[in-house]
């Protein structure tokens, strides 16, 4: 493996070198090879770590042990699974569209790793490419994953898989807009789309300055990566295994990798946008990023272990009536703050924004439970469709 890049005294020192301004290693080819290996290795390492942490962690939530036989404390379980799946028979349904069926898992997996091209992993300026449209690249690339999911559902010629794929597209389309708008709050504060600059600007983590955006981003990101409680396209009790029903062997393994890969990418992005990315005292930057990613992921599967799965109408209603208006309101408030609040003293903004976030969330949950879903309020009476009318005191 190529040597790790040095961190030569921060952004300015790197930028002031006359020759290639955004290549910390000087030679572009050396830079390319080093960071390609680093990005893929980091991605795969975190995927394996996440699989292990989730399997053991969720087992603890459900009062069981989880995989603990392969290697010390079950550390090699992922490798055992990989070898097992390599030796499995690859069954392709006779009625399937063979080419689409083959390409789907690859297309679903690639975007998860491709995101690490713009995420600063090893500190300031030490990343593959410091794109000045980094966030747009992330948004664009990460939505390609759903094409793979849809190809899987359509290509396997299975009605349940097709239902799952349709649900997946509808879900990702719905949660894309709150996700994009929540990230806009961060862009407003940082004044840049470059992920490196976003981390660089975070004296105060944007989790504190943008609590509402962080909550919206977290929920939308869980939905985009099909994590529970938003994993409707893998609802076992309704549609078998969803879009990968007809997959076996290595292709199934790729979908498994894709699921965790998107979780890894989403955690990395959340850490970068809201938790200060690689920043932190004492420990090396890459370790800080890993810790933050694991914390974000832990909160994710904590939610998974706690909450039951949503219904489809609840899922869509939550995106369109809950998260989207909240994200727009947050955007307007943030824009006003950025324009009229003095940039020298950002700390007083933290309690203000937390209070605003709490008020808005409480207000919205109230509106949402009364008039948003299938329940309608008419002159002091709450009517639930298909159920008896309930009198409420106002």
């Amino acid at each position: 493996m190529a040597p790790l890049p040095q961190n030569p005294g921060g952004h300015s020192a790197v930028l002031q070198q006359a020759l290639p301004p955004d290549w910390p290693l000087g030679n572009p080819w050396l830079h390319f090879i080093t960071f390609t290996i680093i990005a893929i290795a980091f991605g795969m390492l975190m995927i394996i770590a996440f699989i292990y942490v989730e399997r053991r962690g969720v087992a603890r939530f459900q009062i069981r042990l989880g995989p603990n036989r392969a290697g010390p404390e079950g550390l090699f379980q992922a490798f055992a699974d990989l070898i097992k799946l390599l030796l499995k028979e690859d069954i392709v349904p006779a009625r399937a569209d063979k080419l689409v069926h083959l390409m789907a898992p690859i297309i679903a997996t690639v975007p998860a790793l491709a995101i690490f091209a713009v995420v600063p992993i090893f500190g300031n300026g030490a990343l593959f490419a410091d794109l000045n449209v980094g966030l747009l690249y992330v948004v664009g690339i990460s939505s390609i994953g759903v094409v793979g999911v849809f190809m899987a559902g359509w290509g396997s010629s299975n009605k349940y898989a097709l239902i799952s794929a349709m649900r997946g597209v509808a879900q990702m389309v719905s949660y894309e807009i709150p996700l994009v708008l929540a990230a806009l709050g961060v862009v407003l504060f940082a004044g840049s789309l470059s992920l490196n600059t976003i981390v660089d600007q975070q004296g105060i983590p944007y989790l504190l300055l943008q609590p509402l955006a962080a909550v919206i981003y977290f929920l939308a990101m869980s939905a985009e990566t099909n994590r529970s409680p938003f994993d409707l396209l893998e609802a076992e009790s309704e549609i078998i295994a969803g879009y990968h029903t007809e997959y076996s062997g290595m292709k199934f393994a790729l979908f498994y990798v894709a699921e965790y890969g998107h979780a890894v990418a989403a955690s990395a992005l959340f850490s970068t946008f809201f938790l200060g990315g690689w920043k932190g005292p004492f420990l090396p930057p890459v370790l800080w990023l890993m810790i933050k990613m694991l914390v974000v992921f832990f909160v994710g599967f904590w939610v998974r272990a706690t909450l039951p799965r949503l219904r489809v109408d609840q899922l869509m209603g939550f995106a369109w009536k809950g998260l989207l208006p909240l994200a727009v309101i947050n955007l307007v408030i943030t824009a006003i703050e950025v324009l009229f609040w003095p940039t020298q003293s950002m700390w007083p903004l933290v309690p203000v924004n937390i209070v605003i976030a709490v008020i808005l969330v409480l207000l919205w949950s109230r509106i949402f439970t009364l008039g948003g879903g299938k329940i309608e309020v008419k002159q002091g009476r709450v009517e639930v469709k298909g159920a008896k009318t309930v009198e409420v005191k106002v």
Partner: protein
Amino acid sequence: MLTQFGQIALFILVIVLFISALPIAAFIFRLIGLAPHKPTQVKTSTYESGMETVGKSWIQFNVRYYTYALIFVALDVTAILLYTWAVDLKSLGAAGLGVALVFIAILAVGYLYTWKKKFLEWK
């Protein structure tokens, strides 16, 4: 900048090759006989929880999915347009904020109309 995009294109190509290596490895395992390959008619039939498959699976789908797609196209394009505004807000100043507010207000009219017409309900 352009070289960066070129590098990223190459990077994605490397990832595609890396990911494709896994199914290719599985295929090689099959060729050398480590993994079995004995497709039978029952094995390659469509699995729908034990029921026989009726008709084709490539069917016309419920229209409610497409209404969401339509709303998405309208809103997502505008969200991306807001990105260009957000990057430069500090130099655009209050006038820029006013323009964006008008922009959001126009969107809100369409959004509220959609809500009123119950297109946001999952029917």
